[in-house]
């Protein structure tokens, strides 16, 4: 139909990427099905496994409720009050989204562990807190730490999306706080609550690192951790496979539900008019806002401070001389580099084909489908994927010997959704703006790459690689499965140091990891051109 415009090989890169995704996604799944069968019965007959499922749901549900319960008044207070440090706080809330979980856990242990700041402070005034960090309490605390800021930001943006004129109108009509809540705020928030809740639920349901570090034994184990334990503790391949399939099923259901409920997250409105709310002066409101904000700050700030101040201790220098630390750093960097290269290569493969589908062949739906295949792999939780890979490779290879490459592969696959999303606009822009021009000038092959694609892609590629590297640098799931004495990454080292309570060493590791991630983040925001 369109002979001059269609390249014969347009499908090649996409097909290659799809093939790789298919092999890496379906292979392990088939291995699991083969090993675990589809039998659902054993799971429900075993009291322990039943408990694991119940606990996964319980902790995710409670985490969601608590996060939202705190986020709503905090978002409201942030919207009502403009105080010094507010924008810094919002930035910190944003950073908590990309902060590797294990670093934050270090902060939480430093603050809430038996010897942490808070119990010591309380003990000095005669209050014995006992240990509350291990088990359900700690898991909830950590999930609250991660998800409350996410929810508060999201809800605050929803409130800020209410036109400033509405607030002025409300002022003229003399609305009080209660009426504002009923007539303006609640309608603005209501629609966001279900998608937000389902997102947080999914995140907490498959939370691995937190539960590994704070779970403390079988009493507080989620499905994802149980998969890991069945494989690494019990060598029960069939149980591991069954648990993995259950995890896949439940996670898939939760994600499908989330997809049903999903609404686009509100963008940050840069309204020229600051909403002038009529209810900012009343002392009661001030007290209430003060209370919620203090609560949020007390929850959120001390662990962050603990990570940074840990670096001020003199023991840090001792810990920094550890050979193990630098070896882990090297391994982490290698894995991060490899994973981000892999993720970008697969993404580009998908995107070059999808772009052709969309632009030249006029098949936008097929193109979107191809692009979203990159996110599909994320539906399979890491523990499931790695268990499958493990079972697949066990008979034919030394799995631990391959650990390095497998972790790289899993990390690369896991950051595909981010890299696809980062690269897609740049590639799309290249054709939307310049495709006809390039065609009319006969820019093809290398010339097209050199003078059109590469200059437009370069910045996005840098961003995508940095994002993928940040992700990989914080990963614990894959390395837990394939990690060994020979494969030591920074997060895994930190996890072990936390577990054996070597807080001085852990401080050095956490600080190094934090520095790496923030400098990469800085590169993402500054170094690679326009922040989108």
């Amino acid at each position: 139909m369109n002979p001059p415009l269609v390249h014969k090989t347009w499908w090649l890169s996409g097909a290659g990427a799809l093939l790789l995704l298919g092999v890496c996604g379906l292979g392990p799944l088939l291995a699991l099905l083969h090993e675990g069968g589809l039998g659902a019965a054993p799971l429900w007959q075993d009291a322990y496994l039943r408990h694991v499922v119940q606990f996964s749901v319980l902790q995710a549900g409670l985490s969601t409720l608590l996060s939202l319960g705190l986020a709503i008044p905090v978002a409201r207070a942030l919207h009502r009050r403009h105080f010094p440090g507010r924008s810094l706080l919002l930035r910190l809330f944003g950073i908590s989204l990309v902060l590797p979980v294990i670093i934050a856990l270090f902060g939480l242990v430093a603050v809430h562990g038996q010897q942490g700041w808070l119990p010591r402070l309380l003990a000095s005034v005669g209050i014995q807190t006992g240990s509350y960090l291990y088990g359900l309490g700690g898991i909830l605390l950590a999930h609250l730490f991660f998800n409350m800021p996410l929810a508060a930001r999201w809800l605050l943006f929803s409130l800020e999306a209410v036109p400033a004129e509405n607030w002025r109108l409300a002022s003229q009509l003399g609305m009080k706080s209660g009426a504002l809540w009923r007539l303006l705020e609640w309608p603005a928030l209501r629609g966001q609550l279900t998608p937000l809740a389902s997102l947080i639920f999914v995140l907490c349901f498959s939370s691995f690192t937190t539960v590994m570090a704070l779970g403390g034994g079988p009493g507080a184990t989620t499905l994802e951790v149980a998969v890991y334990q069945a494989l690494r503790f019990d060598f029960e391949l069939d149980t591991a496979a069954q648990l993995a399939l259950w995890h896949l099923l439940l996670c898939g259901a939760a994600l499908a539900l989330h997809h049903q409920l999903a609404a686009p997250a509100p963008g940050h409105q840069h309204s020229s008019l600051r909403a002038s709310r009529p209810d900012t002066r009343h002392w009661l409101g001030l007290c209430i806002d003060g209370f919620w904000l203090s609560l949020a700050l007390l929850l959120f700030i001390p662990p962050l401070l603990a990570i940074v101040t840990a670096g001020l201790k003199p023991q840090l220098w001792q810990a920094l001389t550890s050979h193990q630390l630098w070896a882990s750093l090297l391994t982490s960097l290698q894995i991060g580099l490899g994973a981000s290269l892999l993720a970008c290569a697969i993404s580009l493969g998908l995107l070059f084909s999808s772009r052709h589908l969309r632009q030249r062949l006029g098949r936008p739906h097929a193109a979107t489908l191809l692009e979203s295949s990159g996110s599909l792999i994320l539906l399979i939780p890491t523990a499931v994927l790695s268990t499958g890979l493990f079972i697949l490779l066990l008979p034919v290879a030394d799995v631990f010997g391959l650990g390095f490459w497998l972790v790289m592969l899993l990390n690369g696959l896991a950051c595909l959704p981010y890299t696809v999303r980062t690269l897609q606009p740049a590639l799309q822009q290249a054709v939307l703006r310049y495709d006809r021009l390039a065609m009319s000038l006969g820019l093809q092959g290398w010339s097209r790459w050199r003078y059109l694609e590469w200059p437009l892609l370069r910045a996005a590629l840098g961003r995508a690689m940095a994002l993928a590297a940040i992700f990989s640098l914080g990963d614990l799931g894959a390395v837990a499965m394939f990690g060994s004495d020979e494969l030591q990454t920074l997060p895994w080292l930190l996890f072990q140091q936390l577990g054996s309570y070597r807080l001085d060493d852990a401080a050095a590791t956490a600080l190094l990891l934090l520095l790496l991630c923030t400098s990469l983040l800085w590169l993402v925001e500054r170094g690679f051109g326009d922040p989108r």
Partner: protein
Amino acid sequence: MSAHSETIPALVAAPEPATPEPAIKETNDLTLHCRDLALARGGEQFRFSFNLQPGELLVLVGPSGAGKSTLLDLLGGFVTADSGALLWQQQPLQSLPPAERPFTTLFQSHNLFDHLSVQQNIGLGVRPDLRLSAAQWQQVSAAAERLGLSEFLSRLPTQLSGGQQQRVALARSLVRQRPFLLLDEPFSALDPALRHEMLKEVQQLAHQQRIGILLISHHPEEARGVADRIALLQEGEIRFCGSVSELDNSANNDMARYLGRRS
């Protein structure tokens, strides 16, 4: 700076009032023939027939949605016709990729790569891989000079004004040396005085370089001043095509209605 730099360099002799007759048959046929070139797009039917001769400036006017851009897409090779013929030198053009057709197209926007310098942008017209010989770079400089762009060669397009940017695109179409130039309202974003200057420039290109130019315009009154012929496009078809004097004499209702004149 703009007032000075927008003036046209004094490179032109007085414009010849060339008004080639529309239906001349030549043995070595350098005329572009477009016969019943048809396309169904978005539920609408388009069918185009017209000729374009070397050295003539044909202005295409018509209400928006009539199919002006569709026609340029068809000619340029960015979409493919369902039926009909597009002939030049007895050769069908429809199976050729955009770059091999005898056209240079200037789009409404994005005619330049914003990340490449003016010199590179013009040079791409000579060779798309930019491996230019010294003589070819000389050619680029000459074209730039002709359009008054010599001092901007190392700049990026975003550092130029809108008029200068379109002039860079024109310079590139010069070095491409294609017999036909298709202009898709490239000056519509410019202010009226500048637009008029650019139109004059285009007219000179047509007459001096013997380039056949198809110009889509939103400003038929302005185009009258420079056009050799005017074509009116309505509802997917060319309803009228003739010289400016024919236009004035004709009792063509469509044209009159479009131009808002009483007949």
